[in-house]
């Protein structure tokens, strides 16, 4: 269920994942197992199907994240609690309401890092030009970095089709009524991608400036797009999204003049809410600013590999 807007759906089943151009059977190499449906507990708030019956793999250690009641209360699940039940007592829970997603995201992150993949989570309002921007990014990066793309939308695989024109492997996630991508969906979608030879994984999130901000997917960088047509003060209206941005891209900069875009005001608003984000101003149509963005990604990818304890080869 979306914890944010109450869109009412779960990320469990209605999600469609298609990678039609590449209908290979997939096997998973070491480091990626089919654990997507498994977790130590069924976090309440997820439907009963989310893990009430699960098996534990051998060697699957239990951590204290599965916040069970503490033993000093002498009232374990199966113990007789006749006496204890009389007394008022405190149960420490200390669990994030989005705890399950956060842990799945960490698992994704470890998997990506072990492969030396640089992973972007690209977010914006609908219509900011994410797909055009990414198509141009993937196309012009091709000689330097090979990218794969995961695209999230409520319905249709139009965006995936547009991105496939670049020749890059693309997996479409159709979320049905879910307004954002979750870590679990990414783990499933990644299983459909042939990651060999890829250095960059781009996740195009569902167009929405609210809910996706709360869901870590396991990315290295959050990239938020804002087109010049959306109003200079938009970052102030959607603070959580912009505050969590590592990179903000002003898109459709070729339209700046036509829509009376006030660049100074826009940058001032961005700086207030996202003072440390890297800023880029681009036009996918004219190519303006795309060089800097591309060089940034190439540098980030090199750093990602240099930082990874397993090194660039795997």
């Amino acid at each position: 269920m979306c914890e944010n807007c109450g869109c009412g759906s779960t990320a469990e089943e209605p999600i469609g994942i298609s990678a039609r151009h590449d209908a290979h059977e997939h096997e998973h190499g070491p480091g990626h197992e089919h654990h997507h449906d498994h977790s130590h507990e069924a976090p309440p708030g997820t439907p009963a199907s989310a893990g009430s019956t699960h098996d534990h793999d051998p060697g699957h250690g239990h951590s204290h994240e599965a916040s069970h009641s503490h033993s000093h209360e002498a009232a374990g699940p199966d113990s007789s609690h006749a006496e204890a039940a009389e007394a008022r007592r405190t149960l420490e829970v200390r669990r994030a309401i989005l705890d399950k997603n956060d842990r799945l995201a960490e698992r994704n992150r470890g998997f990506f890092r072990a492969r030396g993949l640089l992973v972007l989570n690209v977010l914006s309002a609908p219509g900011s030009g994410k797909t055009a921007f990414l198509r141009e990014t993937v196309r012009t990066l091709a000689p330097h970095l090979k990218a794969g793309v995961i695209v999230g939308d409520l319905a249709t695989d139009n965006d995936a089709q547009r991105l496939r024109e670049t020749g890059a492997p693309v997996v479409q996630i159709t979320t049905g009524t879910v307004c954002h991508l979750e870590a679990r969906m990414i783990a499933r979608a990644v299983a459909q991608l042939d990651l060999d030879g890829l250095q960059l994984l781009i996740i195009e999130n569902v167009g929405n400036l609210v809910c996706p901000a709360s869901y870590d997917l396991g990315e290295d960088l959050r990239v938020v797009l804002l087109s010049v047509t959306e109003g200079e003060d938009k970052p102030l209206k959607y603070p959580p999204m912009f505050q969590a941005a590592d990179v903000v891209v002003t898109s459709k900069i070729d339209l700046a003049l036509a829509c009376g875009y006030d660049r100074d005001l826009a940058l001032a608003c961005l700086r207030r809410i996202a003072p440390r984000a890297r800023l880029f101003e681009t036009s996918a149509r004219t190519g303006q600013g795309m060089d800097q963005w591309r060089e940034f990604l190439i540098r980030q990818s090199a750093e990602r590999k240099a930082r990874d304890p397993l090194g660039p080869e795997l």
Partner: protein
Amino acid sequence: MHELSIMQSALSMALDQARQAGARQVLVIRLRIGALSGVAPDALQFAFEVLAPGTLAEKAELAIEPVPARFWCADCRREFVSDDLFAECPGCHRPSGELRAGRELEVASLEIE
């Protein structure tokens, strides 16, 4: 709507924990809600009143502990608290980018019997 579904998750997390501990009823549910979590405590309170009837937490009190937003200024090497989303370091008046606390959405503890 946003808070209704968050409350629903929090409540079922709390009820599961209470049941596992053999509780007959839940007296208090304590949540920690960050100032920058984007969730309004009043709306959570309202959602709780809608959702709690008929559960073990029917008579429970919902206690929401607000967690102030804490920022870190790397230049001055100091931490400061601000409820302003556009926090400036009180030392150098530059905006801080590093949020150290304030986005929490957490079930902290329960009182049960």
